[in-house]
């Protein structure tokens, strides 16, 4: 059953087929099915919670200084592949032993003026205290492909698991793009900061190096940032220049083990007050970086300073309420879960003054 899910691509896309490594999706499917086997006929509490992949790494970065002179950009309409990766995870319910989560990833690329996508998932997992270590380590092994990587890390707590699994899938999707695209622009969601459990520096360096060897430039857009200058968010530092432009941030000093693999910019690419943190691979020359952003401006559509390819990747992987209901329907029917309504203790105790349970 698993073998039939090898990745095939549309003819126009320049993925060299034989080199595609399907290890992670195969492991995802195996682990997903394996974890769900143990969920049969359990009571099932429906609730949902989207896990925002917050950039907690930024807490470990020292304050920074912007360069006063912005880099003014001119869109270069050259035929370039623009590719973007994003993943998302969601908790779709609780069982008596753990949680049911869903993970999905999307690769979107623009070629010959049209957008295409490959979407992986949803992969459903029943994560319990008993199996979380096994699931996480099996996935890490499948992705990192080296036995020593996982030994240093302990498995995350139950509530961190959705984000962690989604991150592993995201890294794998990024690796696929870096290995298969040439002369293109690869857009990541988030930053190029590494050094934590699911973003090991060595693996990120490998992704960036592979991309670079194939003459690609990696651009990482962060939807949210906590980096500040003079107390203000860097994305609020708006100069009186006509967009598109970038403003380079210097003086960033990450605390170990955090490593910045990219240089940080504030990019204001269209009119309006929207700006984003943009990380560009450190090893790419200054000229190439500017050329890459200009090519992106000339090739992709932009809405509110954000590239359409990345927006589509985000849209395609995000779960809608309808999909959550469908997954709940699937698990309830396929695995005979009995849906229960566990009382909300806040509501029970405080009535209308109870705001419902909150999780940190």
């Amino acid at each position, binding site marked *: 059953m698993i073998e039939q899910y090898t990745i095939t691509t549309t003819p126009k896309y320049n993925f060299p087929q034989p080199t595609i490594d399907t290890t992670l999706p195969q492991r995802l*499917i195996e682990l997903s099915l394996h974890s769900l086997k143990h969920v049969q006929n359990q009571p099932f509490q429906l609730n949902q919670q989207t896990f925002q992949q917050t950039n907690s790494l930024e807490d470990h970065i020292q304050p920074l200084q912007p360069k006063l002179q912005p880099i003014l950009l001119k869109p270069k309409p050259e035929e370039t592949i623009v590719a973007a990766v994003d993943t998302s995870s969601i908790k779709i319910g609780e069982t008596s032993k753990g949680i049911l989560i869903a993970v999905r990833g999307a690769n979107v690329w623009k070629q010959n003026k*049209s*957008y*295409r996508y490959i979407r992986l998932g*949803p992969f*459903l997992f029943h994560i319990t205290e008993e199996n979380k270590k096994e699931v996480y380590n099996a996935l890490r092994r499948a992705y990192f492909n080296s036995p020593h990587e996982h030994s240093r890390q302990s498995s995350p707590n139950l509530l961190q698991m959705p984000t962690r699994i989604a991150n592993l899938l995201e890294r794998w999707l990024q690796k696929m793009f870096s290995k298969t695209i040439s002369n293109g622009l690869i857009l990541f969601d988030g930053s190029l900061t590494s050094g934590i459990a699911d973003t090991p520096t060595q693996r990120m360096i490998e992704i960036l190096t592979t991309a670079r060897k194939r003459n690609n430039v990696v651009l990482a857009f962060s939807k949210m940032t906590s980096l500040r200058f003079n107390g203000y968010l860097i994305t609020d530092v708006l100069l009186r220049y006509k967009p598109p432009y970038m403003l380079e941030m210097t003086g960033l000093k990450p605390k170990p083990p955090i490593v910045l693999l990219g240089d940080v910019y504030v990019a204001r690419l269209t009119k309006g007050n929207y700006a984003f943190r943009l990380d560009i691979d450190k090893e790419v020359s200054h000229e190439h970086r500017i050329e890459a952003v200009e090519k992106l401006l000339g090739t992709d559509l932009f809405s509110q300073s954000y590239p359409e390819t990345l927006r589509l990747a985000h849209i*395609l992987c995000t779960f*809608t309420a309808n999909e959550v209901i*469908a997954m709940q329907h*699937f698990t309830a029917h396929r695995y005979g879960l009995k849906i229960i309504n566990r009382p909300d203790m806040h509501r029970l105790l405080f009535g209308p003054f109870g705001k419902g349970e909150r999780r940190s």
Partner: protein
Amino acid sequence: MKLYKKESNIVQILSFPNETVEKGDYLLIEGAEAGKALIVQVIDVQFASIPGILEELLRSLPDGGELMQGEDFDPLEIAPHITYIQDARLNICKIRATVENEGLSPSSSWLPSRSQSAIRKLPIPTLLKLAKIDGKLPIVLGGAKDSSFLTIDASSLDGKLNIITGKKETGKSYLSKLLMLNLIRYKATVVVFDLNGEYVSLGMTADGKRNGYYNKIHVLTPSQNFKIALKQLDLHVLLSILIHALHLPGTSAREFRRIWQSLKERGSLALRELGEAIRNWRCNQHVRDALFSRYYALVNSGFFTDNVAEAMLLEECLFKAREEGGAIIINLRNTSAIDRQIVVEYLLGKFVELLTSWKLKAIFLFAEEAHLYLRETYWDDIVTRMRHFGIFTTFITNQPDTIRQNIYRQADNIFLFNFTNEHDLEVVSRAARVDAETVKSIAVDLPPHYCLVLGKVVKDFPMVAKVKALDVKTMGETRLFFKDMN
């Protein structure tokens, strides 16, 4: 299916796409513990309000309205479940009755359990049995939605006021012919005011051969084989014709009454004598002119004769029909508007006379587009006074607003075909035996030849049926210019 909501006598039921439920279907909501069940009818099928559906649809249209090309690797095959949820339906249903101890009550006060009640489709034959829509005189109207037959009882048309309405070419005439022929089968006397000559060949099969009804269909064409002699006429019938059909003023009518009595006393009630009498009558010249103009209208209609033998066919046909059932088709096809009114005034007067004297037991009158020949004051007469004499009318029209509101209010049965126009549906929905929501929702979507049956014939359980095809020469087809060219 799951019960979702109840407001007043409307319940909302959730269903998935594989549970095929259509407008007009009946559902049974059974509460096992309560030992009761609700009979509800689907009056509208909507998409269930699914959270995130807008995002879902927008997501598939990101590129200027074109679908984005791509591939989905969905190892657990969740996509069909997503489609399933997306296409979930919300069935808006009207409570029709409660089943308790195998009996029906129109109450909707009982509320079944939302989580425990079982919901299933109620087959039409079961409903017909439950509602006791059966009898000794069955009339098969046609196929119901679930491939069963919708059968009504002829006695539920007896003494009733019926309306058959729908837009053009939806099958109204088919149904009226079906009802009519079945009534004849049960030896009823039927009279049809046939405006377009559609009923004249009912005694023939579609391929032109005589059928079983041949000897029971009597076609009377005014001024051809249907004439009346003045001697047969009552003065009040003729005065009705003169006043209502020919608009004779009151003063002139008084003079006419005197002339008529004078001729009657002399035993010379004939057309020629009537003309002579008007000419020689001592009266105002204007009165004379008025009388003369009406006299010539009567003469020119060709409907009146002095030959009594020529004027016996109507009674003969009626008495024949009384014995073995039959239909008298009054072919008004080539009759002018005024002559139509003259004929109808005469006939209604004659029927009342025959019914009052118990020469006839009852008449089932089928009146097509009655506004074209029925005077204003007769509408009330037909639904109230004449009903007591034994004239049971079925109005057939494609212009529902031509039938007065009080007729709808008193209608016992309504056979409703498709209407697209909201105004038309608004008019029909005023009928007392109908709820406006059902009419407006179901009738709009009825395909041609499908009919929504409302009223006593279906014990107030509105039902949709495809009207059965008839093997008779219907003659109702519209003449087409381009027919042979295509």
